[in-house]
């Protein structure tokens, strides 16, 4: 399996990348290549031009301020997984990145690439939606900021235009003192992952004041709104009907673009319940609550 012929350029300046994407209609961005090169190898993609962005300095780096953590689009999954700043501020990103492929894939694959590729069941889109991240996106028309929760449309589809490139991802630090977790079921038979992610905030008395659940399966990363109310105000997660919450999550995802197959629904329920339990446990630890 070898790619069809294509032209190749590796600009070092962002403006040159944008000009190429604008000027060459059959151009594609090459970042980590862990999703795109298999498609080139199988000739599922036959671009006229591959624009390698790995040498664009403006796309690297990680910045921590009091308000936010900002990652350049070229941040490698392995960096998210192992970096101590990520571990202390956004451990859920480290957890999500650590679920991707294996270390060799993670040394090359990038945050921007994963978000842009929008693969159903991908971990980082789910985590960034959970964290309510903001994507900074550039083209020759300028720069725009899009909320991750408004970015995804359909499997492999987002509002990213063909000639746009993700510059950076910014995560607000105001929700840092919550328990977060990502859980995943992965089977080659399914061909994609089933991912559940949860964020829980407990008050000092151990009562839940905030809960967010996101799932990734066959469609786009989906914020599960209906499951949340039954968890708010609870003192113990076991007091909630977890099975019903799980089934609701599987059902809600079914209404988001691509339905969840009936055989996948128990697995969606399972990862949601597992993520809620882990997030609750971590919030308990963060708040120093004795159960």
């Amino acid at each position: 399996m070898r790619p069809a012929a294509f032209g190749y350029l590796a600009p070092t300046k962002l403006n040159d990348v944008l000009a190429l994407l604008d000027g060459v209609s059959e151009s594609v961005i090459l970042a980590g290549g862990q999703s795109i090169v298999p498609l080139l190898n199988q000739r599922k993609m036959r671009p006229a031009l591959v624009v390698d962005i790995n040498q664009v300095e403006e796309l690297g780096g990680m910045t921590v301020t009091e308000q936010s953590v900002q990652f350049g689009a070229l941040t490698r999954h392995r960096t998210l997984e192992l970096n101590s700043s990520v571990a202390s501020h956004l451990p859920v990103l480290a957890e999500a990145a650590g679920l991707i492929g294996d270390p060799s894939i993670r040394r090359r694959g990038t945050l921007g690439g994963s978000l842009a590729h929008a693969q159903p069941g991908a971990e980082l889109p789910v985590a960034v939606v959970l964290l309510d991240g903001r994507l900074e996106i550039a083209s020759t028309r300028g720069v725009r900021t899009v909320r991750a929760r408004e970015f995804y449309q359909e499997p492999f589809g987002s509002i990213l235009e063909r000639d746009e490139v993700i510059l950076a991802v910014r995560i607000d630090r105001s929700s840092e003192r919550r328990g977060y977790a990502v859980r995943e079921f992965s089977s080659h038979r399914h061909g994609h992952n089933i991912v559940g992610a949860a964020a829980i905030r407990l008050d000092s008395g151990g009562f839940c004041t905030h809960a967010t659940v996101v799932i990734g399966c066959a469609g786009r990363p989906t914020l599960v709104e209906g499951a949340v109310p039954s968890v708010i105000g609870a003192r113990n997660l076991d007091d909630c009907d977890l099975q019903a919450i799980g089934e609701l999550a599987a059902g809600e995802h079914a209404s988001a673009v691509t339905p969840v197959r009936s055989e996948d629904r128990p697995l969606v329920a399972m990862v949601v319940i597992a993520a809620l339990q882990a997030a609750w446990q971590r919030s308990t630890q963060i708040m120093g609550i004795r159960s």
Partner: protein
Amino acid sequence: MSIDITFDLNEEPVSLAVEPRELLGHVLRERLGVRGTHVACGQGICGACTVLINGEAMRSCLLLGVQANGCQIRTISGVADVAGSPHPLQEALKDTGAVQCGYCTAGIVLSALSYLEECPAPSRTEIEHALSGNICRCTGYTAIVDAIERYVAQSWSAPQHILETP
């Protein structure tokens, strides 16, 4: 389109002209005759194509040859020492019976050495997770993980840089 590239291959400089569509794994095997690296699935799943790029294990089937320009690349051929004595990890794999057809072995050696640079004292479970991207059809993996555990234990009793020759 033809692009001139230069890189360091197993500590020897190489220069050649490649087409952008030539994968690094194919450049190594077909243009440079370095056939210890195997290109199998072409999708990054099996790990047989693993090489070290600037010391880090990556898939050579998911890198274009042109992307190797300016890099230091080490393949399995560059793991044994200059005189051809096997690396202690290779000895351990032989001792535990972890090599049958040998097709996955190059990728496993390089994945393991790279991982141990990052995490020098892993648990058995961590070793298994680190090798989750290397498929073996023959051995059932147990002997492979045994060998890496044995190598890690040996490395700690006689500390040395992981990639140095014994």
